[in-house]
């Protein structure tokens, strides 16, 4: 078993009697991207804050780097937290905000170094701009730099793409992937299922403060797969040939003519045999996985 960076063991959190999360247990291993999804009020932010040591569990045990993170100053040097709101000081300039952060983390970050960091999020020309005058998206990108400034081992991202336009959503996704490639451990909480589907290897699905399902994303999807086989074709001629073959074999299927795809409710081997019998050439064949959205809809109550 891989070495865990964060462990939640039967953790419950109540806010003056109101349920935050209840009996949650999971592990985040070194170098993983773990995605935490769930509807509003499911407890995603509570988990982030417990992991970052901002909250103390009512019951159970939270360990990050084998220590209790609550009010533990030393652990905070190793954690980068992106909160779900703009956290920088509006009255200060971008430079002042980052300078304050770099000094808090005992870093020797000069103006040029900070400019290089800002280049990653396209804010290199805003160094002397007052944060309050930046757009929400820009502030979000700045907060992202703030979470990364000290090169943390564990990155906790709460709704990282909120306020960002499509271009920057893609760029930040690429940045997160490159951070994963550098060996960082990333815990993302989001309502954006596409983001989690794109990035996360492990998924934690919460509903009303309780853990509904957790595990490796592909395993969860496979477990819930509908047994539908997707066949993709090179050209329309083979596509039509396959449609006729499935009709004559009385198979239930539906098509996406634009993408030259056929979805058949049968076993892949049987379909391949039918297609070979009629000399039909196909591009690919495989079991169609459930999307994360389907997993979400299956488990989360209305």
């Amino acid at each position, binding site marked *: 078993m891989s070495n865990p960076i964060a462990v939640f063991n039967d953790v419950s959190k109540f*806010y003056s009697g109101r349920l935050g999360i209840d009996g949650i247990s999971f592990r985040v291993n070194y170098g993983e991207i773990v995605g935490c999804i769930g509807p509003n009020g499911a407890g995603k932010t509570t988990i982030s*804050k417990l992991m*970052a040591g*901002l*909250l*103390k569990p009512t019951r159970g045990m939270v360990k990050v780097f084998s220590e209790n993170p*609550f*009010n533990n*100053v*030393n652990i*905070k*040097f190793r*954690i980068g*937290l992106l*909160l779900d*709101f703009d*956290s*920088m*000081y509006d*009255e*200060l300039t971008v430079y*002042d905000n980052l300078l*304050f*952060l770099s*000094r*808090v*983390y005992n870093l020797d970050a000069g103006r040029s170094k900070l400019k290089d960091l800002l280049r990653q999020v396209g804010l290199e020309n805003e160094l002397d701009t*007052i944060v309050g005058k930046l757009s929400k998206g820009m502030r979000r990108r700045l907060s992202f730099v703030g979470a990364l400034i000290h090169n943390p081992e564990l990155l906790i991202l709460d709704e990282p793409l909120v306020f960002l336009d499509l271009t920057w959503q893609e760029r930040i996704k690429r940045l997160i992937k490159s951070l994963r490639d550098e060996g960082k451990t990333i815990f993302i909480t989001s309502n954006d299922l596409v983001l989690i589907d794109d990035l996360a290897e492990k998924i934690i699905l919460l509903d009303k403060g309780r853990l509904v399902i957790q595990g490796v994303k592909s395993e969860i999807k496979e477990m819930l797969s509908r047994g539908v086989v997707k066949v993709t074709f090179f050209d329309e001629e083979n596509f039509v040939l396959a449609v006729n073959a499935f009709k004559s074999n009385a198979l239930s299927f539906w098509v996406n003519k634009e993408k030259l795809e056929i979805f058949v409710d049968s076993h892949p081997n049987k379909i391949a045999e039918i297609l070979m019998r009629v000399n039909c050439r196909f591009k690919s064949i495989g079991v169609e996985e459930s999307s994360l959205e389907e997993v979400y809809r299956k488990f989360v109550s209305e």
Partner: protein
Amino acid sequence: MELRSLHWRRCIGNLFLNSFKRVVLVMRKDLKMVFRSKLQFIVLFIGVLLPSSLIPFLIGKSRASYAFFYLFQPYAMFLPLILCSQFFSREKSSRTIEYLLTLPLSPAIIIVGKSLSILLLTYLYVSLGSMVAYISCIISGINLNLSWEMLFSLFLAYPLLSFSLIVNIGLLQLISRNILVLYIPAIISLIAINFIVFMARIMGSVSYLTSLMKMQFPLLFVSLILFLCFILAIKLVDYERFVI
């Protein structure tokens, strides 16, 4: 044995130095935020410099030193309490306190850093005001006859009492969302001052002013007690109330 004691002394020294550096970081950040606002300079001019320069014209020569004290005693005492709402409550309501707590800064360092920046601002206001008032009196031919007691009260006893109050109030404002908490400092300080004056009168002081000036040592004692309360509270308080 000696080596071990040297090692411990170094550890404690480093810990103290490190904490102090972090306190200074918080102070610098807060002061930068204050002086980015133009409003602060308007307050400084209308609230402090203008009335200070008018002292010799508003009162007679004989009462100039009393007026001097009356003008700055509220600044030394109440300005920090007003600034408290800007430095602590605002940080709580804008949720930037959560952001600060995600950084490697302990709650005690955040509170002490903020309290010291409030105190520094107060010193700046009182010192600038005093200088303007003093120069204005000299130009008008008034001899202020400032006693050491008066200066000691203005620049040490009251600011120290304020600092001790601020750290406690800061803590209170960070754990509470109730806006009424803002009024608590004013009530506490009024009660404290009137109690001290009452005690001074019982002990034989003749006027309110002399009572106030003669009570520096009780003030210092109260400050010490209040600061010890803060040390105790910082150990006992539940920090997640800063976030919830």
